[in-house]
């Protein structure tokens, strides 16, 4: 009750506030410039003490100021500024000035002079710093004006000698953001004060305050970002900063060195204390490697991350990063990795049981051992063993990037990556598995490495196992024992975690098709066939047996001798699996049986070209035959649509394209059908039947266009235009239908206006595409636009009708790649007959596992819908973390949906499906920018007025049997 009351109180309270707000905004509109500024003026004059003034200013800062009155307000503030003795008030004014000059549409150059003037007489360091900050804001608003920038930079240079670090900080920031970038311009306008900015900033690299040093480096980096080519001379300075006492400085210095190494990779620098010289990028690489063992983990992370992007480093240096000489009592010891390798190459199986197996062998020269090498020695060894997992992850990422660019390095880092599979933090393990997958093209796993990799298959985390399956899909294995090992381990995995079935099968499919020759000698053993005896027929439903068959059949695809080893039942099982698991079992050319059992099989694997040709030909046909009689067009369209749909089913690569065009043609067909009606010519209002047909057509076209726009990935702007065009036509149709069915004119006014607005916005959005749309509906419509705007609704409708009928239909160009977003709910399977029982009023969690393909930004768009039998629908937004990204274009949604309902008498089925949410205002380009869900919800509010939001169901609904029981008392 109390809570309720409280709520009431709040409600009332908020109500009051709202009204006030409305009042204010209403007044604001009427306020004129002087009165607004005057109010502030009065306030400030009234202030008796600095604290009062500060309060007024604080209040003032909370309200927005209109563009027109900004200048007046600034004047008043400045006036007060000169009079004010209290530093804190001046500080606030200075910050307000900055805030005000940020106001959109206000050009702050008029207040710049004043701001600079105030600087000269200011004593307080804090206020100075704040004023400089304000100048920075002004400067960033006026970046196009070089003289302003010059002037500000000069001011900043003057204040660089200030004794307060805050002021120097801001000065450097200002120089960094506004310093002249183009050499030529700088020369022209060069006065004695504006010297080389780089030199000025460089002088502050050894300022006494670490914050200023950091700011100096940051300013330098800022200059670099703005396109200034930094001088190579800075390099030695930056190197000195690496030994700084403060971590921020070191961290920034590492960045600076990295930037320089990218700018001057090939120039030569001398090695101190010797007369050798090396490339700068190598030197920098060595130095950054050194920072991987820094005392501060922030620096370590930074260094490890940057290492990954230094691609030009010579391989000699690169390989050093993995090198760590071991020694024991001054004798050289082999690493465990080396030992493993040796064992492998000598063909002996792991002994390792003898004491002192790793006894150190050769003596090493004490002089030659360099305990802390200047070079890159062992940087990654350290990084991967670091205490903080952030560093480890960064190191793994860097390894990945470097290994992708250098195959030899990939080979070398393999051992280390494999080791990371045993990391204590799951994220690191996962990351290293992903890394391994990315570089797997460059490597072949040795047996002992494979062993370690496979050991991870028993991991209890599903993510790890699935990542590992992905990895195995694209790994090269060197021996047949390796394949056998992998299979055995995968089968073990299967028995332990039966839910991994699909993933394991898929993994074996790739494993088989990659290593046909290695599988071949294993076949008799795997199928347990015997040369003389008939062995019992294995159980067809055993997932393990299916797994073995998947491996063998995929290997057999490119190994024609293999089917000879099959026994009779294997062929039968093949036929069965080929039908039931066609995505896993490839078509095989089976000896003897092929002609009888599957005469179609050769034709199922046609080349890509003919089908693509077919697609294009059929489309050509449609587009060319424009002047056929209406009946003919309709028939042709129908046929083509049918062809295309069939093609999509047969050819998975072309499915997206075929579906897309089929949908488009379908729209066209609907439009033609709707316009075909003879009754259009009748002046009388349409009766119900026609009305229903035409409006249904319009509605369906609208729906289809949204699908076309948002469900396919790879749609380019050319297609978007045409889709929009189609939508416009549908809307025109809608307008006509309503005009013909309703009697009054009043509602038509609004509709017409809306339609015309839409045409207008269409024109604005796609102005560049208009030339391609000769003779189309829009083209004609735009020609008639002046007439349309002035004419009455009935006339507009008439014009629309004729244009709609006369307009030709547009050729839909196809993009290179077009994929339809699809979703497949793996779990719940919908097969269960046991209802999910739970007490009504409480919730039950339903695990949903689905794969999504070709969905862009699934975190923002994919929703789960639950339909209850009573028609109640519930839409659930899954958490962003529920989406995994196992491969390009693919996503996996593993989430829990909470169900609840009041009690039922009988168990009943609910439907679960996935929806794709769209917002018609968000064009394709902006949709690509990932938005976090909360920021989107904020932005969506103003947009939703004219944008249409909706959802497209894009997965088959799955039925779940549930039973909410009444609660027991």
């Amino acid at each position: 009750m109390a809570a309720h009351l409280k709520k009431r109180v709040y409600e009332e309270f908020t109500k009051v506030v709202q009204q006030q707000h409305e009042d204010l905004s209403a007044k604001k509109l009427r306020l004129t410039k002087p009165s607004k500024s005057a109010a502030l003026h009065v306030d400030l004059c009234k202030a008796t003490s600095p604290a009062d003034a500060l309060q007024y200013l604080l209040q003032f800062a909370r309200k927005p100021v209109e563009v027109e009155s900004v200048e007046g307000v600034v004047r008043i503030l400045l006036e007060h500024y000169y009079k004010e003795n209290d530093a804190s008030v001046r500080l606030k004014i200075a910050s307000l000035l900055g805030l005000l000059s940020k106001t959109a549409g206000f050009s702050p150059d008029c207040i710049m002079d004043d701001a600079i003037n105030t600087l000269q007489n200011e004593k307080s360091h804090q206020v100075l710093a704040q004023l400089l900050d304000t100048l920075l804001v002004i400067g960033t608003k006026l970046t196009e004006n070089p003289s302003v920038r010059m002037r500000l930079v000069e001011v900043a240079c003057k204040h660089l000698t200030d004794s307060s670090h805050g002021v120097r900080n801001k000065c450097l920031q200002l120089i960094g953001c506004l310093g002249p970038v183009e050499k030529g311009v700088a020369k022209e306008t060069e006065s004695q004060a504006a010297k080389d900015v780089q030199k000025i900033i460089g002088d502050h690299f050894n300022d006494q305050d670490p914050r200023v040093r950091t700011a100096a480096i940051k300013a330098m980096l800022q200059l670099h970002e703005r396109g200034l080519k930094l001088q190579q001379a800075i390099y030695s300075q930056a190197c000195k900063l690496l030994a700084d006492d403060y971590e921020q400085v070191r961290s920034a210095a590492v960045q600076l060195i990295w930037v320089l190494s990218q700018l001057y990779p090939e120039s030569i620098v001398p090695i101190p204390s010797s007369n050798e010289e090396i490339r700068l990028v190598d030197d920098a690489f060595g130095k950054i490697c050194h920072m991987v063992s820094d005392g501060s983990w922030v620096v370590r992370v930074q260094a490890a991350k940057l290492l990954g992007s230094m691609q030009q480093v010579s391989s000699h240096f690169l390989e050093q990063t993995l090198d760590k000489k071991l020694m024991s009592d001054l004798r050289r010891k082999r690493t465990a990795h080396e030992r493993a390798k040796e064992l492998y190459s000598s063909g002996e199986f792991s002994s390792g049981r003898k004491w002192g197996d790793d006894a150190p062998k050769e003596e090493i020269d004490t002089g030659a051992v360099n305990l802390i090498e200047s070079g890159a020695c062992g940087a990654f060894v350290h990084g991967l063993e670091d205490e903080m997992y952030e560093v480890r992850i960064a190191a793994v990422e860097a390894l990945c990037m470097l290994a992708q660019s250098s195959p030899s390095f990939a080979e070398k880092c393999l051992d280390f990556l494999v080791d990371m599979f045993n990391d204590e933090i799951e994220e690191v393990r996962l990351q290293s598995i992903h890394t391994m997958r990315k570089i797997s093209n460059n490597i072949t796993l040795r047996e002992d490495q494979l062993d370690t990799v496979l050991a991870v298959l028993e991991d209890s985390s599903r993510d790890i196992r699935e990542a590992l399956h992905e990895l195995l899909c694209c790994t090269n294995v060197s021996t047949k024992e390796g394949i056998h090992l992998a299979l055995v381990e995968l089968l073990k995995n299967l028995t332990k975690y039966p839910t991994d079935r699909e993933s394991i099968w898929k993994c074996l499919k790739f494993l088989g098709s990659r290593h046909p020759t290695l599988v071949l000698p294993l076949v008799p053993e795997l199928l347990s066939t015997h040369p003389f005896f008939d062995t019992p027929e294995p159980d067809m439903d055993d997932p393990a047996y299916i797994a073995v068959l998947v491996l063998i059949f995929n290997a057999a695809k490119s190994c024609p001798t293999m089917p000879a080893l099959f026994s009779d039942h294997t062929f039968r099982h093949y036929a069965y699996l080929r039908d039931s698991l066609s995505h896993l079992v490839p078509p095989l050319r089976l000896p003897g049986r092929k002609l009888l059992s599957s005469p179609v099989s050769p034709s199922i694997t046609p080349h890509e070209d003919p089908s693509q040709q077919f697609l294009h030909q059929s489309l050509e046909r449609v587009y060319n035959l424009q002047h056929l009689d209406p009946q003919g067009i309709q028939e042709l369209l129908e046929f083509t649509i049918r062809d295309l749909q069939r093609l999509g089913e047969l050819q998975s690569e072309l499915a997206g394209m075929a579906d897309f065009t089929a949908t488009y043609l379908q729209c066209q067909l609907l439009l033609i059908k709707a316009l075909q009606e003879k009754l259009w010519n009748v002046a009388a209002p349409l009766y119900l039947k026609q009305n229903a047909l035409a409006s249904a057509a319009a509605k369906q076209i609208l729906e289809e266009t949204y699908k076309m726009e948002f469900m396919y990935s790879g749609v380019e702007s050319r297609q978007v235009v045409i889709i929009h065009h189609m939508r416009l036509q549908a809307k025109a149709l809608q307008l006509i239908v309503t005009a013909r069915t309703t009697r009054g004119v009043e509602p038509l006014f609004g509709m017409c206006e809306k339609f015309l607005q839409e045409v207008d916005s269409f024109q604005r959005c796609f102005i560049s595409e208009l030339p391609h749309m000769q003779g189309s509906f829009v083209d004609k419509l735009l020609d008639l636009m002046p007439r349309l705007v002035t004419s009455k609704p009935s006339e507009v409708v008439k014009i629309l009708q004729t244009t709609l009928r006369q307009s030709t239909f547009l050729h839909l160009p196809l993009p290179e790649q077009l994929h339809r977003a699809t979703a497949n709910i793996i779990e719940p399977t919908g097969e269960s007959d046991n209802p999910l029982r739970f007490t009504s009023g409480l919730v039950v969690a339903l695990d949903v596992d689905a794969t999504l393909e070709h969905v862009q930004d699934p975190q923002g768009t994919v929703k789960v819908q639950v339909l209850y039998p009573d028609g109640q629908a519930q839409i659930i937004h899954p958490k962003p973390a529920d989406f995994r990204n196992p491969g390009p274009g693919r996503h996996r949604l593993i989430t829990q949906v909470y169900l609840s309902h009041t009690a039922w008498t009988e168990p009943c089925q609910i439907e679960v499906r996935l929806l794709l949410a769209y917002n018609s205002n968000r064009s394709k380009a902006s949709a690509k920018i990932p938005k976090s869900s909360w920021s989107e919800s904020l932005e969506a509010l103003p947009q939703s007025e004219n944008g249409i939001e909706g959802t497209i169901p894009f997965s088959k609904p799955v039925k779940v049997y549930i039973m909410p029981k009444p609660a027991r008392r």
Partner: protein
Amino acid sequence: AGQDVGRSCILVSIAGKNVMLDCGMHMGYNDDRRFPDFSYITQNGRLTDFLDCVIISHFHLDHCGALPYFSEMVGYDGPIYMTHPTKAICPILLEDYRKITVDKKGETNFFTSQMIKDCMKKVVAVHLHQTVQVDEELEIKAYYAGHVLGAAMFQIKVGCESVVYTGDYNMTPDRHLGAAWIDKCRPDLLISESTYATTIRDSKRCRERDFLKKVHETVERGGKVLIPVFALGRAQELCILLETFWERMNLKAPIYFSTGLTEKANHYYKLFITWTNQKIRKTFVQRNMFEFKHIKAFDRAFADNPGPMVVFATPGMLHAGQSLQIFRKWAGNEKNMVIMPGYCVQGTVGHKILSGQRKLEMEGRQILEVKMQVEYMSFSAHADAKGIMQLIRQAEPRNVLLVHGEAKKMEFLKQKIEQEFHVNCYMPANGETTTIFTNPSIPVDISLGLLKRETAIGLLPDAKKPKLMHGTLIMKDNSFRLVSPEQALKELGLAEHQLRFTCRVHIQDPRKEHETVLRVYNHLKGVLKDYSVQHLPDGSITVESILIQATAHSEDQGTKVLLVSWTYQDEELGSYLTSLLKKGLPQSTA
């Protein structure tokens, strides 16, 4: 611990303060040599008078074993500093040690349980990075050292002189502890352990992987795994390792841990979460890693249970106790395995089986045939050569002193350190004293007014360059202050004495006096552009506060005598002026 391992005890005299670092015992001896020789400190009189404090780095007996003997039997009442976990675990170990020596070996004249308790009462516990003021000048600060739970490095600071003592430390993180870390404190001396002075270890991941793989394989075969361990330190690391592995792999075979000491110790491991590594610290809210799900207490009867199991049993060298019993039971089966995680002393069963002996003679003339597999894994938590170098690089000491290691190995490291860092490196033997000269900087208080005034005079304050200042140094009550002369006079109650230098310069000039003056004036004005040169109406010239008067020579009218007079403060300018005037006036003006 000079040039050997064990019996760590180091005396440091720093700026008149005496500090004892660690108070350990030697495992190898059973007579007086097992404890440090405290007569080094003083022959007669109480130790308390000679020592300002005692610091214990961690709870291993070679670092704290002699503590009760030292404080209770020899007699020391001053403060003893150690970290919280060390304070908690140390008495358990000492008690255990006492039991073995007194109850098992039957020694008398050894410290009692009560003594351990009394000794612990003198202990002051410190936190990491907490600066503890021992007395007015001496302060100590603890840094994290890895190694074992609660191990710390200590910085001892008196005035501006400082020493860092590392104790034992580990630069690579392991499954339950993080890596040692120190900031750039630039001590005058770094006293570092050097157990692995000549070793660079392989990555710990390989070791862990091997270990897990072997255990896993044996368990899958249905065999039993025996891991003899010492109760604290490595045992916990291996427990965590196996526990997480079991968790990850969903294994069901039981893991047992022999009870006793360990249970208490595990309790402290659970408590001191802040001292463990990142992973344990981050996840303890969900589940404390030391609350083992799979590891249970061991009972003697379990050893005969069928099926696979893993048992951690003490002691670590298989020389007695539970581990040996279990070993005898399991040795006959080739499915079983024993993993020795550490070093074994010669003569123990552990050493024998590691060296490949397959038939062991047990007491009672029994011959035990060892069929089980024997593995060796080295898990050690000392810094290796690279780690030591890394620490030196982090701390940037001016001198390094190596302890806790073998002389021959130290020699190598010493040479390396001198070569790489260009600092002096020492490695004293037991009983040897090393004297290190520091270059102390003496802090002087300066009044703000003076500082501002003086910095305003010169150019920009430059961080790296020394700056010249004028002021009066007052040394009073052991403190130094730099104040302006006026204030100094005021404080000391002295009147100011004016010190004036006067100098006569003869100039050959036949003209009249005032003309000469004018010439001098013009000349000076031309030369000294930066100073205010004034011609006063009474015929004298002032340059700043220097007065110049000209009179004709009483005998020779052609020679003018210039009287230059300046105060002590203007010495520089004054002497410059005189030398300028001595050169004579330029002829061109004549």
